[in-house]
């Protein structure tokens, strides 16, 4: 059985132009211990997906249109705030792109980590402190007993991200959702944090859902990848297959537009145009207006995800021809 199983999830946002679907009818699974990458550009719905799993959507303006989020067999979408609070921590932990906005500036690092232990495990002060020190040491913070009394602003960006990871992992969650965890960090620090996350995955046997726009980060981390575009999953594949045989024009476009260290091209390939306006989405395939492979049938109806090979799905009606190229 999957650890997490999202079915036909639709998340709606109220806007001046009426309700728009930021996430529209997405379905995916995540197994225990698996690292799932969710890739997409801004407006693709990848962060909204994470927030709906965590029960952290701002409501209003957001509301769940339909679908279910099954975590260990329970539908989290039926949970109230109190029940969700018991899931966050020991069930699902989350880290964000900008740790400064998720750490409380007026409390010390120690207060914030110990609070998490107190709420979820009800152990005494001394035990809370010990746990916090152990965890900070584990995420690579030197002199953790001294750092406990620091405030978030006294730490560098990389250190704050380590503290966030310590907070998210101290209750040993079964699933860690990491939303752009290294985007605000320098590359040498990014590499350290990615390595730490994979080590902790092995050690705690947790699953990781990593949300990123960076194809390099996905290649490094993920076992399986979901590519999102304008609220839809357009492709889903094991990591090797996605890079070996990208089967959606958008995935191909993304891979082609990255200036990599390895290539010597004079010119980058681009995807023309921009993301569609969410309140005026194309009637059929949402990528159709920007797609070099579009045909009349692409406008007629929304293409479903179909199997290219087992475990590898694409929402392009021409995936067969794409593969032949």
């Amino acid at each position, binding site marked *: 059985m999957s650890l997490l199983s999202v079915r036909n999830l639709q998340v709606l946002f109220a806007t001046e132009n009426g309700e728009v679907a930021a996430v529209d009818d997405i379905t995916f699974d995540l197994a225990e211990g698996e690292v799932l990458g969710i890739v997409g550009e801004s407006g693709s719905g990848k962060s909204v997906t994470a927030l709906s799993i965590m029960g952290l959507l701002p409501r209003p303006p957001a509301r769940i249109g339909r679908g279910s989020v099954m975590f260990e067999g329970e539908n989290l979408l039926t949970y109230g705030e109190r029940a969700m609070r018991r899931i966050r921590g020991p069930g699902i932990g989350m880290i964000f792109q900008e740790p400064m906005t998720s750490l409380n500036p007026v409390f010390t690092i120690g207060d914030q980590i110990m609070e998490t232990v107190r709420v979820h495990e009800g152990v005494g002060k001394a035990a809370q402190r010990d746990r916090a020190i152990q965890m900070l040491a584990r995420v690579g913070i030197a002199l953790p007993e001294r750092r406990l009394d620091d405030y978030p602003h006294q730490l560098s960006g990389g250190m704050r991200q380590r503290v966030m990871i310590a907070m998210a992992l101290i209750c040993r969650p079964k699933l860690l959702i990491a939303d752009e965890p290294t985007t605000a960090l320098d590359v*040498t620090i990014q590499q350290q944090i990615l390595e730490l996350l994979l080590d902790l995955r092995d050690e705690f046997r947790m699953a990781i859902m990593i949300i990123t726009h960076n194809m*390099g980060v996905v290649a490094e981390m993920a076992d399986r990848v979901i590519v999102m575009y304008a609220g839809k999953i357009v492709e889903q594949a094991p990591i090797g297959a996605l*890079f070996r045989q990208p089967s959606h024009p958008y995935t191909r476009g*993304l*891979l082609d537009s990255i*200036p990599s*260290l390895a290539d010597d091209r004079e010119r*980058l390939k*681009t995807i023309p145009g*921009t993301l569609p306006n969410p309140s005026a989405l194309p009637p059929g395939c949402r990528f159709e207006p920007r797609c070099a492979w579009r045909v009349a049938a692409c406008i007629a109806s929304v293409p479903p995800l179909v199997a290219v090979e087992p475990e590898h799905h694409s929402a392009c009606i021409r995936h067969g021809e794409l593969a032949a190229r």
Partner: protein
Amino acid sequence: MTPLVRVEGLTKHFWVGGGPFGTGQSRLRAVDDVSFAVAPGETLGLVGESGCGKTTVGRMLLRLIEPTKGTVEFDGEDLLRLPPDKMRERRRNMQIVFQDPYGALNPRMTIEDIIKEPIEIHGTLNAKDARRRAGELLARVGLAHEHGRRYPHEFSGGQRQRIGIARALALNPRFIVCDEPVSALDVSIQAQIINLLQDLQDELGLTYLFIAHDLGVVKHISDRVAVMYLGKIVEIGDKRALYSQPLHPYTQALIAAVPEAKPRAERRKAVISGEIPSALNPPKGCRFHTRCPHVMPICRETEPPVTETAGRHLVACHLYPAGGVAAA
């Protein structure tokens, strides 16, 4: 070829902290003794992690930040000796494109007015010609004429960056400092803007200083690349040489740390540990010695001199003693 831009010993120290009347302030060495030259029509990439001083260098070239020491020559003329009115005139030739196109565009002005503003300030064209020029510039950066009547908030990030580029081109500059122009953009849009900058360079013969932290982007667009660490240039050279055979251990680490869009069988190990030290109190000797895997006793004491290796490839590292380069 005579360089268009030549920088010698460029240094900027900021005084930070302290009490009233400047007591107890400390010196932040943002940029320390930086030298380089950019040939006409060339793109020099400037890479480094946050806080290395790359943005300060870019702004000092245009005197948006006044250097503490050093010279900045543009077309053979020392800009730092110019009085303000002359400097303003010279800025026609030197423009800047910023990372955050939204922050750099006045939200109350129409796009046409934003693009016309530099023309009006410098009084180079009459009102009618200025309007026509704004229309041409919009078309040149891939926007429609009617976009000129709209306001910045109506545009996406990529379109705003196009507007920022159009404004930078308004006075027909010869040199543009591009300060992280694509870092805030999605990858598919990033590629469009990079191609646009390259097209403009080819057509208009522009010279760029391209500042960025993304090594892939810098490699793609640059002819030569300079690597900065804690206020110093540690290595500078032709991009092919620098990327295929980086000499400085920091450059090597930086390149190795980039996650490649290619899945691999075994997990990589971080090349360097630790974080960038504070520029308030940079390490003695070589500033990279606290994180360097090849650190030697001399590195903790003496600042490494700049050594030239084959093909104008310069490196500041004790592994490469002056007069000859050890096999790396």
